[in-house]
């Protein structure tokens, strides 16, 4: 791994005058603005310097006359941002999908919401907005206000290019979603099936696009905490934590130690809850109902702890700017510890089950294999990447909350199949239990929040959190008022969903749910 300084030096050496300016967004995070057209070279240089680097997100910001595009590249232990501006009238920029295929969806999203054309994109179709959305309305541009977004658009139908059976190819089109028992949330995947073998997969997301990024601009920072929590019900605390720590970075607020530990506890509870939900759901997808019922029963232990800690079972509303909203009661600590011990006993049972059960094994071993190279190329994050042997974890790479003081292991498996992805999660639940136990034992005393002003000084910052599904990315730009100028959210599933196409093609129809569920897709996150 190359250090960030080395990459920055390589950038300035080879781009030279094409760099317009270099500045620091927040300590350790550099922003390099390059001339339009040089962005691709810049991205290529970073990818060459660090072979484990990947484009984390592409953010668009409306600057009035121009649209600023930011390529956030995840490298070593930080994020390097490469910026380029395109005129709003003629918004065109060269696509980077040929050097980094994982940027496919990121570019399509920006194209949908900002009207930037990415030249050379292999599949420049709509991704987020409905098919019959008016041609020249780009919701995240500033001239489009919430008031003039059409409330009712035309009749949404099946697009014309969809056929059930084409006789000459003998491929049957099986549509997975938007309503399908294997998908809890609505997204559409068109599978072209030859007998029982999947030949092509075409994903289409956007069915639960709620325009949260736009809505965040018309709410205060305080209101936005509750808004971003509702991006995803399962990992809500991660969204709140990520948003709050990004805003805190702009404000320069430091959070008291007790609050950092309490945040760690709720974030880890969130992870256990999410992983167990997924592992149970995986059982359901491969027809193992008993596993599903057992997992979800034991997950109730965590729900009880969440309720004791935050007062809520699911949406925690616990983390706020400057700390947390409630303190942990001393008398709850032994109860929480007892339940964690109980959970740990159950975990050894599940671990044994996942390692020894024969039917579970033949349904998940060597199914949906994603090699390490493909994982890096597609820019996957979280347990999906770790299941393919990519050693990345924001908790260790760029510690937030109290992770720099708590010892824990990053779990990786090299197999890259569905089983490995499930095992990563199962082992991480054990690690999370250890983290919570350590945090409870070493909980500092003192205040659990600091009061902060409602307005935020001008500035911008990037926040990253290791959500249960992987790296969660926030970019917040402030204009000095109580309302943010831009809130960008890149959820882990949005980064992972492209890999589904890769692992499903060539596989068996019966394996689609098993390999799909091992990615732990969350579509509310994906669409926002």
């Amino acid at each position, binding site marked *: 791994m190359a250090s960030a300084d080395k990459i920055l030096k390589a950038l300035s050496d080879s781009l030279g005058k094409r760099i317009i300016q270099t500045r620091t967004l927040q300590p350790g995070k550099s922003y390099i603005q390059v001339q339009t057209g040089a962005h691709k070279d810049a991205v290529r240089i970073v990818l060459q310097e660090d072979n484990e680097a990947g484009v984390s997100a592409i953010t668009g910001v409306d600057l009035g006359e121009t649209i600023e595009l930011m390529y956030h590249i995840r490298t070593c232990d930080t994020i390097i941002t490469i910026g380029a501006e395109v005129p709003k009238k003629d918004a065109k920029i060269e696509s980077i999908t040929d050097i980094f295929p994982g940027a496919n969806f990121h570019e399509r999203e920006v194209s949908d919401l900002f009207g930037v054309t990415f030249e050379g994109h292999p599949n420049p179709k709509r991704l987020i907005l409905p098919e019959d959305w008016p041609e020249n309305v780009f919701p995240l541009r500033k001239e489009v206000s919430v008031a003039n977004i059409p409330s009712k658009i035309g009749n949404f139908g099946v697009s014309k290019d969809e056929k*059930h059976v084409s006789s000459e190819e003998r491929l*049957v*089109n*099986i549509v997975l979603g938007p309503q*399908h*028992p*294997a998908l809890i949330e609505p997204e559409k995947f068109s599978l072209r099936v030859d007998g*029982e073998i999947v030949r092509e997969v075409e994903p289409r997301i956007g069915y639960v696009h709620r325009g949260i990024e736009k809505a965040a601009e018309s709410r205060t920072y305080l209101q936005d905490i509750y808004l971003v929590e509702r991006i995803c019900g399962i990992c809500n605390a991660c969204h709140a934590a990520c948003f709050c720590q990004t805003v805190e970075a702009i404000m320069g607020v430091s959070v008291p130690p007790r609050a950092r530990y309490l945040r760690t506890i709720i974030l880890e509870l969130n992870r256990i809850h999410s992983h167990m939900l997924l592992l149970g759901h995986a*059982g*359901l*997808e*491969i*027809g*193992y*109902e*008993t*596993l*599903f*019922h*057992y997992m979800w*029963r034991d997950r109730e232990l965590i729900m009880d702890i969440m309720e004791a800690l935050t007062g809520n079972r699911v949406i925690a509303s616990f983390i706020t700017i400057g700390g947390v909203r409630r303190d942990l009661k001393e008398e709850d600590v032994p109860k929480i510890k007892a339940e964690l011990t109980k959970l740990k006993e159950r975990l050894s049972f599940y671990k044994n089950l996942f390692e020894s*059960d024969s*039917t*579970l094994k*033949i*349904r998940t071993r060597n199914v949906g294999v994603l090699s390490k190279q493909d994982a890096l190329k597609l820019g996957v994050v979280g347990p999906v990447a770790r299941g393919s042997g990519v050693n990345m974890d924001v908790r260790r790479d760029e510690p937030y909350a109290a992770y720099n003081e708590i010892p824990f292991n990053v779990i990786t498996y090299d197999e890259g199949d569905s089983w490995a992805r499930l095992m990563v999660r199962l082992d991480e639940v054990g690690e999370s239990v250890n983290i919570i136990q350590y945090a409870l034992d070493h909980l500092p005393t003192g205040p659990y929040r600091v009061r902060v002003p409602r307005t935020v000084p001008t500035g911008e910052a990037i926040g990253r959190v290791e959500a249960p599904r992987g790296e969660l990315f926030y970019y917040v730009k402030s204009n000095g008022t109580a309302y943010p100028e831009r809130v960008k959210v890149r959820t882990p599933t949005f980064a992972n969903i492209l890999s589904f196409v890769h692992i499903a093609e060539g596989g*068996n*129809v*019966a*394996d*689609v*749910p098993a390999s799909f569920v091992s990615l732990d897709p969350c579509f509310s996150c994906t669409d926002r």
Partner: protein
Amino acid sequence: MSLDLNFVFRVLVFPGFAFILLFTMFCDWVERKIEARMQNRMGPIYTGPVGVLQPLADFIKLLTKEDIVPFNAKNFVFRFAPIVSFSIFVFSFAFLPIDGASVVSGSNFEGDLILVLTLVSIANFLLFLSGWSSTNPYSAIGATRVLTQLLGYDIPLFILALAPAFLAGSLNIAAIANKQYVPFAFLIPWTFALFIINLQAELEKDPFDVPHAETEIVAGYETEYTGRRLAFLKLAKDVQMVLGAAIAVELFLGGPYGPIFYGLSAVWYTLWFVLKLLIVVVVTEYLTCIFARLRIDQVLVVNWKLLLPLALLSLAVTVGVGLWLNPL
């Protein structure tokens, strides 16, 4: 021909139609309750005492639902496959001695074992037709899976059923059941174990429930069915479950025959039959709960590479041991 009241009673009430229907629903309840308890759930509890009337309530509810026939599926097969399939399964019960006697005198004959097994195959084929005629991609895939699986397990099932027939020296189900002073399940446990595994495939239960793997192909061949047609399709599957278990009871567990302590033999025979059948139901449910669903290609591997050779081997061993113990 005058109307014989005994004949009408035996065909329509006991041990005929009404008994089979009620017993099927009872078995459905037992099945659901066991599965629920094994999975740490409650199962049906509200309808009737401990939820025993839940299957009946579900059936009546489906009967009252709107009956929708898709435009492309307006054909004879789609309309009649469920009811014909149901009838064949119920009809097959006429050859099984439930209370120790045949349902109507003379309904038992030498070779009815082959007839029953054939009828079951035909009824299963009708399930395939019901899915195929739905003209829905999910149904079509579910239907082809039924057929693929049918080819795989039907042959081992026939072969396995021959072992008890050989030991009893008869192809008459009642005679096979009657000959078992010691149930064949104890004499030839390997055949019985294979038969139960095969039964799982026949009944589309885990690990062989691929034809209606809901996370892959919605409800498989049932997808387009609604209302009363779905009610009969579901009932047909339930009757099939009881029939499958009943065949296992007759062939391997000594049928209705068991010790009679006092009173009417018919009561005792029915009781033994019901008890033995419930044991088979419990075993199949247990297997359902501890397995994940296999993939269709893996099912075929299990059927052709494992069950078929093992069935042949077990038949050979049974014949060999039988001849050694009791030379011709």
